[in-house]
C-alpha cells in the first residue's frame, strides 16, 4: 500500500523519463500562463490594495476585441495596437468612473467595485462580440503552429511551437515588467505606492496616474494571456474561468510579490500536473487539478499566512 503511494509513482517517473519531461513541459506552459494572470492581480493590488476580480474578464475582453477588430478587416498587428488602445481607454475609464470616486473607502468596497466591472464587461462584451467561440488569429499574428518531436531517452517529447512561443513571450514580458518596475521612474513609483501609500503620496506620486498605468499594464498582460489561451482552444467567455487558477498562485506566492506570482505560478503549474498524472489519476479518479493547487496553497498558509514571498503583516494594537 505505502509502496503504491510513495514509491511506485517515482518508479513510473524513472521508467518513462520522456513522459516525465512531457508532464513537466506541460506544467511549465500552464504555470507560466498562471503566473501571467497572477501578475495582473499583483500589480493592481500592490499599487492600490484592490483585489481585481475583473482580471479574468479582462483576458476575455482583450482577446475578443483583438479578434473582433480583425474580423472588421483591420490587419492583425494594427488590431493588436488598437486593442492596446482599447485597454488603455478601459484603464482610464475604470480609474475615472469607478476607482476615483471610491478613494478612501474600505478595501471590500473597492473589491465589490471590481465585481461590478466584471459583470459590466461580461454584458458589454456579449452585446458587442456575441457569445460564440471565435478562432484566435494565430496565423495572422505569425504565431508558429506545428511541433517539434524530440526523442529523449529513446522516448517521445512533443513540443508545440505555440507553447514554445508562449513560454518565450511570457518570459520576455515578465522580464520587461521587472525591468520597468526596477529601473524606471514610473516603475519605482508603483513600488513606492505598494510599500507605503501615504509616504508615496507625500512625495508627489500621483495616485490617479499610477492607477491608470497599472490597470493598463494589467490590460497588456490580459491581452497576451488571451492570445496564448485563445490560440489553444478558441476565444470565448469560458476563458474567464482560467483567472480562478491564479487564486492559489496568489495564496502561495503572496498578493504583493511579483517574484511570488512568478514562482508560485510555475510551482503550481508543474506540481499540479505531476500530482494529477502520478497520484491523482491512478489513485483518486483524476480531475485533481481543480483542488490540488488550493490545498497546496492552504498548507503553505498554515505555516506562512503571508504566502511564500509576501510581506509579514504586523499590526500594533
Amino acid at each position, binding site marked *: 500500500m505505502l509502496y503504491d503511494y510513495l514509491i511506485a509513482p517515482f518508479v513510473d517517473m524513472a521508467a*518513462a523519463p520522456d*513522459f516525465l519531461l*512531457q*508532464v513537466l513541459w*506541460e506544467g511549465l*506552459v*500552464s504555470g507560466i500562463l498562471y503566473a501571467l494572470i497572477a501578475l495582473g492581480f499583483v500589480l493592481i493590488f500592490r499599487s492600490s490594495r484592490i483585489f481585481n476580480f475583473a482580471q479574468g474578464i479582462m483576458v476575455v475582453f482583450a482577446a475578443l476585441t483583438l479578434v473582433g477588430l480583425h474580423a472588421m478587416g483591420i490587419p492583425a498587428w494594427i488590431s493588436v495596437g488598437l486593442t492596446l488602445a482599447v485597454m488603455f481607454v478601459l484603464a482610464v475609464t475604470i480609474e475615472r468612473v469607478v476607482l476615483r470616486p471610491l478613494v478612501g473607502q474600505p478595501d471590500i468596497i473597492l473589491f465589490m467595485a471590481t465585481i461590478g466591472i466584471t459583470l459590466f464587461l*461580461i454584458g458589454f462584451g*456579449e452585446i458587442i462580440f*456575441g*457569445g*460564440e*467561440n471565435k*478562432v484566435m488569429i494565430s496565423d495572422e499574428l505569425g504565431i508558429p503552429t506545428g*511541433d517539434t518531436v524530440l526523442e529523449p531517452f529513446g522516448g517521445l517529447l*512533443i513540443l*508545440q511551437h505555440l507553447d514554445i512561443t508562449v513560454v518565450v513571450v511570457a518570459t520576455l514580458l515578465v522580464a520587461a515588467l521587472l525591468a520597468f518596475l526596477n529601473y524606471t521612474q514610473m516603475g519605482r513609483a508603483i513600488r513606492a505606492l505598494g510599500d507605503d501609500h501615504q509616504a508615496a503620496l507625500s512625495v508627489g506620486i500621483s495616485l490617479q496616474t499610477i492607477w491608470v498605468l497599472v490597470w493598463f499594464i494589467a490590460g497588456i498582460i490580459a491581452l497576451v494571456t488571451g492570445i496564448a*489561451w485563445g490560440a*489553444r*482552444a*478558441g476565444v*470565448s*467567455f*469560458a*476563458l*474567464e*474561468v*482560467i483567472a*480562478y*487558477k491564479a487564486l492559489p498562485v496568489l495564496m502561495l506566492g503572496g498578493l504583493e510579490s511579483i517574484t511570488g506570482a512568478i514562482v508560485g505560478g510555475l510551482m503550481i503549474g508543474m506540481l*499540479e*500536473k505531476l500530482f*494529477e*498524472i502520478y497520484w*491523482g*489519476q491512478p489513485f483518486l*479518479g*483524476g*480531475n485533481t*487539478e*481543480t483542488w490540488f493547487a488550493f490545498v497546496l496553497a492552504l498548507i503553505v498558509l498554515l505555516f506562512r499566512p503571508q504566502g511564500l514571498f509576501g510581506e509579514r503583516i504586523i499590526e500594533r494594537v
Partner: protein
Amino acid sequence: MKHFTKTAAAAVLGLGLGTAAVAQELYVPNLAYRTGPFAATGIPLMNGQADYFTMLNERDGGIGGVPVNAAECETGYSTEKGVECYEKVKSDALVTQPWSTGITLQVLPKTNVDEIPILAPGYGFSPMADGTVFQWAFNMPAGYWDAASMIVQHMESEGDLDGKKVAFLHLDHPFGKEPLPILEKLAGEKGFELLPIPVGLKEMQNQSAQWLQIRRERPDYVVMWGWGAMNAGAITEAVKTKYPMENFIGVWWAGHDADLRLVGEDGAGYKSISWSFPNADAPVMRDIQELVIDAGLSETNPEEASGVFYSRGVVISAILGEAIRTAQEEYGTAEISAPQLRWGLENINMTEERITELGLDGMVPPFSTSCANHTGHSGGWMLEWDGEKFIKASDLMTANQDDYQDLIAEKAQEYASSNAPWPTNEECSATN
C-alpha cells in the same frame, strides 16, 4: 396634467388590450443560455429553435392559427438561474425547456405539482424515458443511453471489443456522468476496459493532464461526453497529442462545427453520434431562409445556419410543434393547455412520411412516443468531420434497447422511491 392623465389612461388601456392579445398565443418558454461559458454551443441551438417558430408564425400564423411565443429566459447554464427562470415562466407556460441536465434534475420533482411538461430533447436524466414514472418529463427523440449504445455498436462494427481499452472523457457534471451505468454494463459484457477521465469545469480549456493520461494509457478509442468549451479544448488537445481522430467519438453535444473549425483539416475523421443532420435543401430550411433570415428576423449568420447545432435547434422546435399540433387535433382546440400538450408529447408519430410533410427531409430519424416511452429512441447517424463540415458516415443506427431497458425501469423506480411519495401513471402502467 390632463394630458398626462389621458396618456396614462391610454397606456393602461393599451396594456389591457396587450394582455388580452398575449393570451391568444401558445407560450412555450425556453430556458436559454446565450451567455456564460457554454454560450458558444447554446447560441446556435437557441437561434435554430427561435427561427423555426418565427417561420411558423410568419408562414402559417403559428400552429392551428395561434401564434407561438417562444420567449427566452436567460440561465447562463447556471442551475440556480435555471430554477429561477422555471419559477418565473411556469404560470403561463405550456411546456418548459430546461436546457441543462442540472436544471432538469432540479425541476423534475416540481413537474408533478405544477403539471407542466418539461422537454429536454436529447439530454436530461435518462430514466425519464419511463413515462409511467416521469409523467411530465420528455427527452425525445433519443437519450444518452441510446447514444452510448450506438457508440459502442459503432466501435464493435470495427472489430471485437474484447480486451480493448476505451477512454471515457467527460465533463465532471451530472451531464457527463449520465452514460456511465450503460458504458460500465457494456464494458463488462463485451470485455473492454473502460477508463473514465473527468474534466473539471475550470479545466475545460486546459486538458493537457487528461490528454497526457490518454497518451500514457494508449486507449483504442476515446469517447467524449463534452459540452461548451470542453469540446474545443479536447479536440485541440487530441490534435496536439496526435491521437488518431477516427477513433475519437463524441456524443451529439460534442459535434459542433465551430469547435472543429478550430483545427480544420487536422480534425478530419473525428466522429459524433447525432439524431439530427443539417440539410440546407430541406423545405423547412428554405422557408426559414426566405421568411426569417432574409427578412432580417433572425440572429443567425450563414456559417452558423449551415451547421449541426442550428439545424438541431430547428428539429427540436419542429418536434415540439408536432406535439402541439397532435394535441390540438385530439382536443379540438387550438389553444391547448399544458396537460393537453403532455398528451401531444406522448403521442408523437414521426414517420418518414410525416417528416417529409413537415419539410424536415433527412434532418431527423423517424420515432414515436407513448405514455410509457417518453424518449422515442429514434436512433441516429454517425457524423464525421471531413475537415470542413460534418458528413453522414453511417446509415441510420438504432440503439440496442436491451442494453438499458431493465436499467431504465430500475433507476426510474429507484428515483421514485427516494422521492416518495412520487405519483406514477397508473392508467399507463395498466395499458403497457
